[in-house]
Structure formats: C-alpha cells, structure tokens
C-alpha cells in the first residue's frame, strides 16, 4: 500500500520532513493500527490513503491503482465526526448513497439496516448536534459503512470521546469488524486501543515519522483466544495483552529519550 513514502512541508521557508521512507502494506480485510507520538505524521499517512494529501515522493496505492484523489471506495471516519449539521441522521447516512445515484427505495433500505446495526433507532430524524459524541460517531461510521467501501480509514475516531464511551465504541467496532470485515487503517495515539483492535500495529517514530517496528497482534489474539472475551477490560488484563502494550510503550519512549538531549543541545547552541 505505502512504498517509500516521503512527505515534507514548507514552513517559514524551511523544508520540514514529516514522513521519511515509510513502506508498509495492509492486507485484504486486515485491520492495521498506526501509533506514534503526536506530530509523527500518522494523520498525514491516512490522508494520503484517502487522497486528501499526496506524497512528496514515493507512492500510495490502493488495490493496484495509485491514489489520485478522494473516492467512495475508501471511506474516512474523521476524529471530529464531520457530520453535516444541516442534515438529519438519515440524510447524513444517505449522502454517499445519493452521490452514487442509488434510488430512493434501495437507499432507505440500506440506511435503515445501518441505523439498526449501529443502534440508532429512534434518532433517524434527529440532527447531529442533538446527539452525544458517541452517537455522532456511530452515525459517521454508519455513513462510511453504508457505501460498502473496500477500505475503511479511521483517523482517531474515538479521540474526541470520553473514556467510557470510548470503551463501548471500541467493543462495538470489534464486533462490527467481525461481522463485516474490511481492510482498515486506524490511526490512534492510544496504545491500548491499537492493541485491542488491530491485527497489526505500526509504530512510528517522532518527526520525521519513520517506521520503528511493525508488531503482529493477530497471531497473539488467536493463540490467546482474546475474541472469546466479551469485554475489553478482560482482554486488557491478560498477560499477553499487557506484554504487547508494554513493548509498544517502550518503543515509543525509547525514541523520545533519544530525541530529548538533541533538543537541549540545539537550544544551548
């Protein structure tokens, strides 16, 4: 999917390298999470897959095609939900379907099925701002899923939610992905969330973002039978989970400590 991707920005006449030589692939129906310190360019990676940003060099491909712009084959779930405040829940979910030219009957059938799947019954005519954050993000996920996209791109989708709502949404996303598996790229700064949700976790370094390590979670999940547990806290208590989480934390911390003395040196110079 990503091959030798570099992306730099110009800031005050200076070339700032945001991503350096990032290459990885997301397999068919695989769920990959990207974690990294803030400013490491993880959102930029996702935006490039969405076609909202482009690499300075290297290539981003989805399927066998180079990404040249946004499209409904790659649905994006934004951190700020990005629901249209002037449209009702139903109209929001139906928006992409209308763009695709699906007729009204089929449209209302699809919308109704996702309203049910995401537990939004009774809120079809509500406006997004009348809903809680968790409900809003359900609508956004329904809006993306309704298009039956090949790839699901999620940019810290639960970052704006409170801790309890977040846990509920994580459990529901896992269920949704089991019923309806998708190729998914998931950005987060929460290590637990990444380990809980993903088949593989890509750990990025501080700016410029490089791949620190890619961890295989799926094999551990299968071996230790994580999916047999209903609740996230039970999984998070397992030794295998704790082990992976600690390893990722260490990877993230190491890089920070490397970077710190350099920062001080620059200041004193």
């Amino acid at each position, binding site marked *: 999917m990503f091959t030798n991707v570099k992306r730099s920005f110009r800031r005050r006449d200076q070339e700032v390298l945001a991503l350096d030589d990032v290459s990885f692939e997301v397999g068919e129906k695989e769920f990959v999470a990207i974690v990294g310190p803030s400013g490491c360019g993880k959102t930029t990676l996702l935006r490039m897959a969405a076609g909202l940003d482009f690499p300075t060099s290297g290539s981003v491909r989805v399927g066998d095609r180079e990404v040249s712009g946004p*499209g409904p084959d790659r649905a994006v779930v934004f951190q700020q939900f990005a629901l*249209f405040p*002037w449209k009702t829940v139903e109209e929001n979910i139906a928006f992409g379907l209308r*763009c695709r030219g699906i007729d009204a009957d089929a449209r209302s059938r699809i919308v109704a099925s996702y309203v049910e799947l995401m537990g939004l019954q009774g809120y079809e005519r509500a406006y997004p701002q009348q809903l809680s954050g968790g409900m809003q993000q359900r609508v956004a996920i329904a809006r993306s899923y309704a298009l039956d996209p090949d790839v699901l791109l999620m940019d810290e989708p639960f970052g704006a939610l409170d801790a309890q709502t977040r846990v509920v949404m994580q459990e529901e996303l896992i269920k949704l992905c089991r019923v309806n598996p998708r190729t998914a790229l998931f950005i987060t700064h929460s290590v637990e969330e990444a380990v809980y949700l993903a088949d593989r976790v890509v750990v990025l370094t501080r700016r410029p973002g490089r791949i620190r390590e890619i961890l295989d979670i799926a094999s551990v999940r299968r071996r230790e039978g994580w999916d047999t547990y209903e609740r996230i806290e039970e999984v998070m208590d397992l030794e295998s989970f704790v082990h992976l989480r600690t390893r990722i934390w260490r990877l993230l911390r190491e890089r920070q400590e490397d970077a710190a003395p350099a920062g001080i040196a620059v200041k004193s110079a």
Partner: protein
Amino acid sequence: MAGLGAGSSARSKGAPSGRELFALSTLGLLAFFAVWYGVASSGWVPSRFLPGPVVVADTIARLSDHAYAGYTIEAHTVASLQRFGLGFGLAVALGVPLGLLMGWYRGVDDVVAPLFESVRFIAPIAWVPFAALWFGTGIGGPILIIFSGAFPPCVINAYRGARQVDTVFVEAAQTLGAGGLRIITEVLVPAALPSIVAGLRVSAGLGWQSLIGAELIVVSSGVGYLMVQGQTSLQTPIVMSAMVAIGVVGFVIDVALRALESVVQRSWGVEP
C-alpha cells in the same frame, strides 16, 4: 432601532429575561413619547418645527383616508416596498452567488476583489445622477440605488460564509463521492447559510435606507416622495408621518429577517 441595539447588548451580558426586556423596551418607548409630547406641547419650540405625537398620529390617520401627493400613505408605502423588494431581491440574487464564488474560488476573488473593494465605498446616493440619467423616472433608477446599498453586504457575508466553511465537511463530502456541484449545493451553501442570512439583515437595512434617499429625488410615489412633498409645502407633520412609516416598515423587515436568522441558527446548532 437604538432601543433594539441596547436590548440585544444587555442580553449578551446575560442580564434580563424576555419579560424584563419587554418591560424595558416599553419603558424606553414611553419615555420617548413623553419627552416628545412634553417638548412639543410646552411652547418652547414652534409647532411647525416639531409637531407633537398627537398631531402626527392625526396626520397619519388623515393621510390614510385622503390621497396626498397622489396616493394615500398606505399606497405610498406599498410603492416603496415594491421597489425595495425588486432592488433587494436583485442584490441577493446576484450578491450571494458572487460572494460564494469569491469565497470558494481563489481566482474569482483575485479578479473581483479590487474592483468590489473600491466600488462598495461609494454611497448609494452618489448613484442618483446616473439613476436619473439612465432610467429617467422609471423603476430602474430607484432599483439601481437600492441595489447599490444592498449588494455589498450580501457579497461580503456570503464570501465570509464560504471562507469559514470547515474543510472537514468538504473533505467528508469528497470521500463520500460527492462531485463539485453537489459539494457547492449541499455543503458550501448550507454551511455558509447562517452568515448569508446575517448578511441579508444588514443588506435589507441599507437597501431600505437607500430607497428613501432615492425617492427623495427620482420618483413620483413612495414614502420618500411623500416626505419631499411635505417638505416643499412646509407640512412638517407629513414629513414626520413619512418618517414613522419608514421606521415601522424598517422595523418589520428587520424583525422578519431576524426571525429567519434565529431559525437557521437553531437548526444549524449555532448558538445565537
């Protein structure tokens, strides 16, 4: 108008409730009439210089029964409103799309902005000679003048609305497969609507004011014309009756647009 301004600024400090506000507004109006009545009936000022409220009310009643300067005061008001509707409608129909385009397409902004930024400082009244020259006493003249007053706020607010559209909505629409036209009609316009409607209020106010200016000069009906006729025959109660009509109609237009504004804000989830 001044009373309204004070009312809304007091509300923003979080002070009076709706009922208190109503009481305060009523109090202000009553005080105004009391002072007006007191001064006019004290004999300090000749009644021709300042007709009292009773005389003005009387005159309004008479003007609505008997035609003056060709028509009753209602017919003059309707004539003015028709012109206003046409000029204001034209300003909205051209100004809002232009503002949206300028806000949406950098290129349009670069081409139009310098011209627009200088033309908008020319007071509507300055167009009077050309209005007379180009349209004579026809309907075109006043419409041109209302238009020149109402057009800039339409453009500026639509422009600001389009500029302030959160890019995340545009990106969301793009990733959902929306094309350019759909993004304009279903994202840009609704997202900019609160700002557009706020612009309509300013625009209507300026348009209505400009109209009266226009009617002082280029037409032979309307409230402004009534005022001029009253002035030339030294009938100050008639001038003041026309002023009352202007004020009341302006107030009603503003209330109507303010209601529209709050409906839009409420359904968009924007705090008024």
